[in-house]
């Protein structure tokens, strides 16, 4: 079990967060080794990554023993970098500098979020305790690191939180993760014969492939703009930039 803590970057920096630490301790003593990693931002939020085998029991414990009665949401994350990049590699994007290869490489090297992750897919859920007004984000890795993407499954939460029913159906169709013990696991939004799992990173966003963003064929040549003098202490902040004077070159503006 490894713990990471980042400082809350607020004005009133909360050094310690006793309520959340006590909660973390209580959950730690209940689940022991099943807790893989935690991440605490004092005064703001708590992340716990739990062993997938203990996933269903976590819901029982949190709802009945810790009074996390409010089921907020459940979803998943696909940590694979998108093979399609950001789909912004049109000529216009290169011109405005939106495509930065170094940055894309950095992004690929970036980790797997707060409380870490060892597998491509992760399940994320959030519950609330309304008497202490605490929220808690839970994560669990799905499958082994090299499990096939077709046979992913984890325990259901519907026995404790019936509201998880639709959320799990959504994850099932969008990520192809099945939930053991779910009362009626079928597609939620998509037609029954739809193939593929749209929110997976390797599912292409066809709209972007059919027509490159932002639609280079639609771009009309801009009217010539007069050279604007750079403001003295402009830096690169938008707040200090003066309001744009209307261009007198454009005949439409002067009408």
């Amino acid at each position, binding site marked *: 079990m490894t713990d990471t803590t980042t400082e809350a970057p607020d004005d009133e920096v909360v050094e310690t967060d006793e309520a959340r630490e006590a909660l973390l301790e209580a959950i730690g003593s209940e689940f022991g080794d099943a807790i893989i990693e935690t991440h605490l931002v004092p005064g703001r939020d708590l992340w716990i990554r739990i062993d997938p085998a203990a996933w269903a029991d976590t819901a029982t414990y949190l709802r009945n023993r810790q009074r996390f009665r409010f089921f907020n949401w459940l979803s998943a994350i696909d940590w694979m970098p998108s093979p399609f990049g950001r789909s912004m590699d049109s000529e216009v994007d290169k011109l405005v500098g939106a495509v930065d290869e170094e940055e894309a490489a950095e992004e690929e090297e970036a980790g797997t979020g707060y409380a870490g992750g060892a597998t491509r897919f992760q399940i994320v859920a*959030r519950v609330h305790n*309304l008497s202490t007004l605490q929220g808690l984000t839970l994560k669990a890795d799905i499958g082994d690191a090299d499990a096939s993407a077709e046979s992913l499954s984890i325990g259901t939460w519907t026995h404790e939180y*019936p*509201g998880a029913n*639709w959320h799990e159906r959504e994850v099932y169709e969008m990520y192809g993760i099945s939930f053991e013990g779910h009362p009626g696991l079928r597609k939620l939004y998509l037609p029954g014969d739809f193939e593929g799992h749209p929110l997976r990173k390797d599912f292409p*966003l066809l709209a972007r492939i059919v027509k490159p963003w932002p639609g280079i064929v639609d771009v009309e040549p801009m009217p010539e703009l007069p050279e604007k003098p750079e403001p003295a202490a402009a830096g690169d902040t*938008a*707040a200090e930039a003066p309001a744009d004077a209307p261009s007198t070159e454009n005949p439409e503006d002067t009408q």
Partner: protein
Amino acid sequence: MTAVSDRRQLAYIAAQAADARVNVELEAEGMTLNIGPQHPATHGTLRIVARLDGEQVIEADPIMGYMHRGYEKLAEVRTYPQVTTLINRIDWLGSFANEVPFILAAEQLMDIEAPPRAQHIRTILFEMARIANLTLFLGDMGVQLGAVTPVFYAFRDREHILNQIEAATGGRFHPNFDRIGGLKDDLPAGWVAETKESLGHITKFCNLMDDLLIGNEIFEARTRGIGVVPADVALSYGLSGANVRASGVDWDLRRDNPVGLAYDKVDWKVWTHPDGDSFARYWVRLQEVRESVKIVEQLLDTIPSGPIMAKVPRIIKVPEGEAYVETENPLGVMGYYVVSKGGLNPFRVKIRSASFSNMSITPWLLKGTYVPDVITILASLYFILGDIDR
């Protein structure tokens, strides 16, 4: 309150008797009734497949997806400022309110805070979006019960608020006005006085609804004791907003966790109702509009001076991290879980929309109700299909 519990008990006994009668007299296989996809009780296109035994619903299965637009996928290929254009359209009746939690989440990741004036104006527009949204509900509920008049008053008086939203932001329904670090523009001259005047129409409208619907015998008979949601069931289904407050849960994020908004600077009250029925949901929303008017009136008097934008880089790059911010939107709790890997685009955006969770209770809630009550219950839960399908 005794009258209510008596009435509830009577309704229970009547339902029991009806159960027995239906089961004995009509041993039917059950008939399937399609409600929707086009139905005025659903703000959008929702289909409910109800299996009926006589007039009673045995099983109800909502089918959505007719309006699924895949915003979570689309957000992954857009830069942060571009995302607000999309999310405006989630709950289209309270559009400015959709932008705020996303912007707050991005600000939290970037570690910047909007200046006080921007936070103040954000709160004003947020509450005006709530007024515009809930006003329509207050009138629309009458339509579902056969009273067509209230909705015309609702459209008439909501227009005053929409005009003010348009005057400030340029858009009646899709303002796209919130920016990371502040707001797009300052308020136009004379806006404060005009807005105060428009709020007067809303106060009058609320009183009118009080006279027309609350206390009306038909309205009360059709809503009291119908569609009762106990507090614990509501919470485990993730119901939020007025739906959960109508079940007696005293929880409002505006009071309990006002991140980045100016609710702590004004004096107002969170209303709850112990009954948990359709009437309670209507009543709580009626009081909420009145409270929103109070909030906006107080905020309009105390707008601080100063800039409306913090110092924000021209090209917005969000450092690596994860943030979840939720606010009390007109329909309930709306939150964005934003995962950033650094760079121009969010890596993953999970949109927690209020109606999705509010609606997920319907298979449980509609079981055993009568067909005419299905419409009332759906209307009183108050959902926008764009907020379910995203």
